[in-house]
């Protein structure tokens, strides 16, 4: 495997969890809900995935458990924000704090134990192709899942009836309600979808990226995924590009550390966070871009008139 292949492969592994979490949140935000709990759902996905895989020995059971963990947390969020009309910002924070605590509690028995790695796809002949084989046909399955999900969301939001309903609910929940759409049910579904992909993102961390359980192993990725939504102006294509860009920044920091250029490692570790802030500034400076796709009802609770 040549050096360029290795670099691209590591960038993809660093980007995929960001992409997975962000694509779900994109749908959530398009439906007009701001879920700040990604970090919490993701870390719950990571711990559930690791635990299930470790106990059962099957990485795929781990993936399923991770999705369930993420969905469970997201449904708690939905219950509060949609049914009980709580403040979405505060509730999202609660999900994150609860998720970080709960994952630590569940994971305390799993610290330092060997994990199960989700094995890479291997297609006879195709994977062995020079240069591209390993990159195109030899990734782990979740990479393909992330790409299919992104394409599906892009297509679905733009061309399907469901996508139209989601966007309508996000733009003006009162109008959507008046048209007879069940705003709260749509939002529940979107939030659950976001929970599922965040759980997958967590599974990616504990089953592929570093197959073990480390406390707080999400390291702010959930928040970066959230920023990616803003950065992409809620367009799936741009979101994917942004995710790979950020994955690249993450890896750049690691490579520079490995090369030992005399730059403090902490400075390099802070790169993704600095890059996130810069990206947000750049995109927010462009008023037209940042306003045009922003769901008009983002973050507002909906109480139907009876």
């Amino acid at each position, binding site marked *: 495997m040549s050096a360029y292949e290795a670099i691209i492969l590591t960038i993809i592994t660093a980007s995929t969890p960001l992409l997975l979490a962000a694509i779900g949140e994109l749908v959530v935000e398009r439906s007009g809900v701001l879920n*700040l709990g990604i970090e919490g759902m993701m870390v719950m996905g990571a711990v559930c995935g690791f635990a299930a895989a470790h106990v059962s020995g099957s990485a795929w059971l781990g993936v399923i458990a991770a999705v369930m963990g993420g969905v469970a947390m997201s449904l*708690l969020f939905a219950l*509060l924000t949609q*049914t*009980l*009309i*709580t*403040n979405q*910002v*505060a*509730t999202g*924070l*609660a999900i994150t*704090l*609860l*998720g*970080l*605590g*709960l994952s*630590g*509690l569940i994971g*305390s028995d799993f610290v330092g134990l060997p994990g199960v790695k989700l094995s890479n796809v291997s297609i006879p002949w195709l994977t062995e192709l020079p240069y591209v084989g390993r990159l195109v046909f030899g990734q782990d399955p979740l990479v393909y899942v992330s790409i299919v999900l992104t394409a599906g969301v892009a297509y679905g939001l733009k061309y399907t009836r469901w996508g139209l309903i989601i966007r309508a609910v996000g733009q003006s929940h009162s109008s959507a*309600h008046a048209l*007879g759409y*069940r705003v709260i049910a749509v939002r529940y579904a979107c939030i659950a979808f976001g929970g599922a992909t965040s759980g997958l993102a967590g599974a990616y961390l504990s089953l592929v990226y570093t197959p073990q359980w480390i406390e707080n192993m999400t*390291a*702010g990725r959930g*928040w970066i995924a*959230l*920023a990616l939504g*803003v950065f992409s102006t809620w367009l799936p294509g741009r979101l994917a590009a942004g995710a790979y860009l950020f994955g690249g920044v993450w890896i750049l920091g690691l490579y520079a550390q490995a090369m030992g250029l005399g730059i*403090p490692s*902490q*400075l390099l*570790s*802070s790169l993704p*966070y*600095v890059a*996130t*802030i810069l990206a*947000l*500034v750049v995109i*927010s*400076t462009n*008023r037209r871009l*940042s306003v045009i796709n922003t769901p008009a009802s983002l973050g507002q609770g909906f*109480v*139907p008139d*009876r």
Partner: protein
Amino acid sequence: MQIVLEKRSQASSWMNVMSPVLAVSLTVIMGGLIFAAIGKPPLTALYLYFIDPLTSWWSIEEVLVKAGPLVLIGVGLAVCFKANVWNIGAEGQLTVGALMGAMVPILFGDWQGPWALVAMLLLGAVGGAMFAFIPAWLKTRFGVNEILTSLMLVYIAQLLLDWMVRGPWKDPHGFNFPKSVAFEGWHLLPMWGDGRMHLGLVIALVIALVLYWVMRNNLKGFEIRVVGSAPRAGAFAGFSQTKMVWFCFALSGALAGLAGLIEVAGPIGQLQPHISPNYGFTAIIVAFLGRLNPLGVVFAGLLLAVSYIGGEGVQIELGISDKTTQVFQGMLLFFILMCDTLILYRIRYLSAKPVTGSGDAS
């Protein structure tokens, strides 16, 4: 039968007081269930968690020591949230405040005397405020969401502290441990009791009382409430949203920075890679549990301080992971938000409606 939420014509002040009580009760019940689920005696665990810390003078002192920073940060955040400004990076402001204040003992170690301590306290507050100005500036100048920026800055601040204590500010005689020189003399807060209680607690209480008075009787307090709850009305009254963002970040950042300095110049006594058990995030819970009211925050801070000490207690006595503390804190925020719904809404039980033929979408 159907259960619906019905908007109250007026916010219920009774529920505003009862909601935290209800939330704490629910947290205790859920906590008991969790203890039972992991095979520990629930009642013993709950006793150790919530009552035992209050049974000896030693642990009461510990609770007060933990409550200090929580109250200090919590009152700042309460004002922020009241004004609908979302500073969730207090943990980072705390870290930078501690770093700034620590300049005095680390760079000017020979400067002793009361003024050195005053300078440390001021530098701590200034450091926190300056760091909080970054999200405030990005918000007011570029319209960048302050939630994301203030949070990203937490990671950056923690990495900065990590670098400082492993690099330039490492104690040269410290056997290569990642720690700064130990603070001495006037670089430490005056202590009393068994040597744990310190001046920081008094500072926290005084600031909480001052802010309580300001929020209640002063025009600034009125402005904060108006801008937060009715921004349009605030604009008509001539209150500037931009200035409010700056004010809130300055205040909450300064208080968080002060809390950080108080930690390193009080219980810790030097800089080290970890100076706070997530006070900056726990203070968010404190602010909500305290009804975004500075006086309420004092009580909420005490309660959450108990949860820290109780968490340590069950860890020692029953071998339960200290992560239970974080779980309890998360649950508490959860239940408080849930119960707060009852302030604005009441629960109505509707009997099954007779079929009327009118198309009811709900």
